[in-house]
């Protein structure tokens, strides 16, 4: 049995930039975060934010990440130049603001309903793997919406719940818009 040949380099740039620490540093970092939350969180209903069950926050984040993953999947597989979702961008509230009115905005309702109506046809034009990812993501987002709406029913003035709900609506619009764009791109428009 021969010894493995030691790795050699010809430029310094070939040396690895990444070195993982031997232990997980996150628990100690996380312990320091609680008393030093970013100012945005502290200034906007801090007490109400702390009352949100962690499971709901995680659910909304998971839905968002699922949505982004679907967008990336579609963006890489079907959209040659990368297309920003115009509807979501146009209706996106400023960071940190709570705009539940946005959800009932007639323009939002109209765009949302149109996208939902064409969803079946657009999904049919996607490859099966993409279609499955979209369906999973939409299911996660809709579960998150339902859970957040139920939680808001019990605590209507909770600012963080409202914000998470708006984020979840935005996530849904992003997925719907991306599916719409991907469907159009697949048809060569």
């Amino acid at each position, binding site marked *: 049995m021969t010894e493995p040949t030691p790795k050699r380099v010809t430029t310094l*740039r070939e040396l690895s930039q990444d070195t993982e620490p031997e232990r997980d540093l996150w628990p100690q970092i996380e312990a320091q975060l609680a008393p030093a939350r970013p100012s945005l969180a502290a200034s906007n209903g801090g007490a109400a934010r702390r009352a949100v069950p962690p499971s709901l926050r995680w659910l909304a984040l998971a839905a968002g990440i699922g949505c982004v993953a679907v967008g990336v999947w579609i963006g890489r597989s079907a959209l040659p130049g990368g297309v920003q979702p115009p509807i979501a961008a146009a209706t996106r509230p400023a960071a940190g603001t709570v705009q539940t009115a946005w959800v009932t905005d007639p323009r939002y309702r109209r765009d949302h309903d149109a996208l939902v109506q064409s969803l079946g046809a657009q999904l049919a034009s996607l490859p099966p793997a993409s279609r499955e990812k979209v369906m999973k993501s939409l299911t996660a987002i809709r579960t998150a919406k339902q859970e957040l709406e139920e939680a808001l029913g019990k605590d209507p003035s909770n600012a963080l719940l409202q914000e998470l709900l708006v984020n979840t609506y935005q996530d849904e619009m992003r997925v719907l818009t991306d599916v719409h764009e991907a469907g159009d791109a697949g048809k060569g428009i």
Partner: protein
Amino acid sequence: MTLAQVEGSAIDWEGALIERARAGDSRAFERLYREHVGRVYGLCLRMTREPALAEDCTQETFINAWRALAQFETRSALSTWLHRIAVNVTLAKRRKSSRHEAFAEPNVEVEEEGIEGGWTLETPVEVEEIEAAIGSLPEGARDALVLHALYGYSHTEAAQMLGVAEGTCKAQLHRARKLLRERLNVEIA
């Protein structure tokens, strides 16, 4: 899927996590930590040469980043911003240490020719050997070398991060090149 894999996609995955972290979502911040910890720790380790100290610097970097997240401009790269914080933290810890070597401008004539070289070795060198040679450099020369030759920052960026004049940074690089050449017994272009 990592953030690096989806850079340039239609969806700003990292931007979405930054936005949520700014709103106080520590889970989103954890995702950012997991994505960037390798590069941050790698830089701290090369600057300190002590794993325990590099871990402290890495933890402090992410804690400071969380506190300052509201000031982060999303137009710039998060990795560069984290590196700037990591360099500041490491230099501050060094200043407190009795073993600190001052980042004084070395008494050498800086030849502009060759300064912009790609740090290419005339003959391949084993990674362990070159890492040991880099680790044995004086602090000032090593810092400049690591930021410029390994992490790809320009002279101006490296000088700004280290809080020195650009000429000083170039002089340190010249010194690093000379010492590496002697220690590895190989030409560096």
